[in-house]
């Protein structure tokens, strides 16, 4: 391996890498966003007093966490069409069905993990906090929004930050269903240059910059919620 070669590859194929970064970020951003929204919903179901909702959520969470993302993703893109379920193609967005399948699989997966993060974050708040709020006359929902959730966010945010980072990394798996993400584009460059070592190194560094930056951003938000603690 040589530094020169690496720089040459970056220079000549930067458009490949940039294009890959774009796709990776699109997939990751949508997955994290949808995963958080549905994960919150799933956590609410999981903690619900309505038994069927609770059971449904528990089964979903356990199943998704207990099966590989690779299986979930390929099932979504290659499996479901055999049962007649396909993601539609939209002419003006290239590869729309691939992206949809990727994002759906990634966010359904992330949703299960986020649900558990949120649930444990809420349940980690001391029960005394709720009791004190109720004893003052607050309704359950008021106590939740004023006392419990602000404290739960403190527990949830670091773990959620980790989940964001995980999603960015795991998203490299969507290359197997033909989404031209960073991993996919890296393979393209390898095919053109036969320089696996340099190309993979470039990819690794890019992934690291992406995850490290988002990790720092989350840490920054955490500090804002420290309630006077250093």
């Amino acid at each position, binding site marked *: 391996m040589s530094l020169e070669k690496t720089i040459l590859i970056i220079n000549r194929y930067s458009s490949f890498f940039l294009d890959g970064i774009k796709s990776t970020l699109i997939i990751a951003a949508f997955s994290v966003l949808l995963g958080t929204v549905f994960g919150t919903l799933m956590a609410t179901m999981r903690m619900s007093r309505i038994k069927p909702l609770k059971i449904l959520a528990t089964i979903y969470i356990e199943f998704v966490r207990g099966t590989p993302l690779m299986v979930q993703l390929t099932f979504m893109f290659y499996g479901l069409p055999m049962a007649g379920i396909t993601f539609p193609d939209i002419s003006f967005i290239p590869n729309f069905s691939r992206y949809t399948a990727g994002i759906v699989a990634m966010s359904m997966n992330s949703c299960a993990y986020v649900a558990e993060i949120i649930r444990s974050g809420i349940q980690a708040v001391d029960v005394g906090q709720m009791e004190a*709020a*109720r004893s003052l006359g607050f309704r359950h929902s008021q106590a939740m929004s004023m006392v419990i959730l602000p404290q739960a966010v403190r527990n949830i945010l670091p773990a959620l930050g980790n989940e964001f980072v995980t999603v960015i990394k795991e998203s490299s798996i969507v290359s197997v269903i033909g989404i031209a993400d960073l991993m996919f584009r890296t393979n393209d460059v390898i095919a053109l240059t036969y320089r696996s070592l340099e190309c993979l190194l470039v990819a690794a560094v890019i992934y690291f910059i992406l995850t490290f930056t988002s990790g720092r951003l989350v840490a920054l938000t955490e500090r804002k919620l420290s309630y*006077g603690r250093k």
Partner: protein
Amino acid sequence: MEENNGRVLLEVRHLHKCFGKLTVLEDINTTFRKNEVVSIIGPSGGGKSTFLRCLNLLEVPTSGEIFFDGVDICAAKSDINLHRQKMGMVFQQFNLFNNMNVMKNMTAAPIRILGMDKEQAEAKAMELLERVDLADRYAAYPHQLSGGQKQRIAIVRALMMNPTVMLFDEPTSALDPEMIGEVLDVMKQLASDGMTMIVVTHEMRFAREVSSRTIFLESGHIEEDKPSHELFDSPESPRLRSFLDKVL
């Protein structure tokens, strides 16, 4: 024997509480009158805290009735949130809201529930903080306070709602010994101001000297319920006698 002829504020009738198969409270009957200070003593696991928590329905009684100001608060149609506003509660673990500073802790409920305006609530909070010598800590967060300070603030936080009765659940049990005095002093002051108080406690001196009546609760039922001096000076039941022998 001092007679208290105040208006009946709380009346407990045939209160039972079970956790699964375990019976914690069995047929509790008693009344609490206005301006009365009642201590509840007894061995651990005897149901003292559960009883106190039943009074504001933090624990839902398995059966029985609790009348607060003449209204059965266990009835399905009664709004417990409304009753709780009138029943202040102080916990063993203080339970100040960790995400709010002292001022917010005190003003959140009066502002949000009673609709008091912010300035008025803050003025009242400062006045109460003054009374417990903590006016300078109004901006502190709970983790910056000592146990004794937290508990004094928990007491005045409850007072912000102008409760008609204050429930204390072992308010000094989680405190370092040197901090117990400052909390008991606040409670004594409250008692002498005429607040109706029900206090689950292990502080026998407080029970004896401050409370007008003491209830000895053992194995889920009221073993003795008498004016404090009488209960401590001439305990009748052998169980109370052996309990007092151990703790005094």
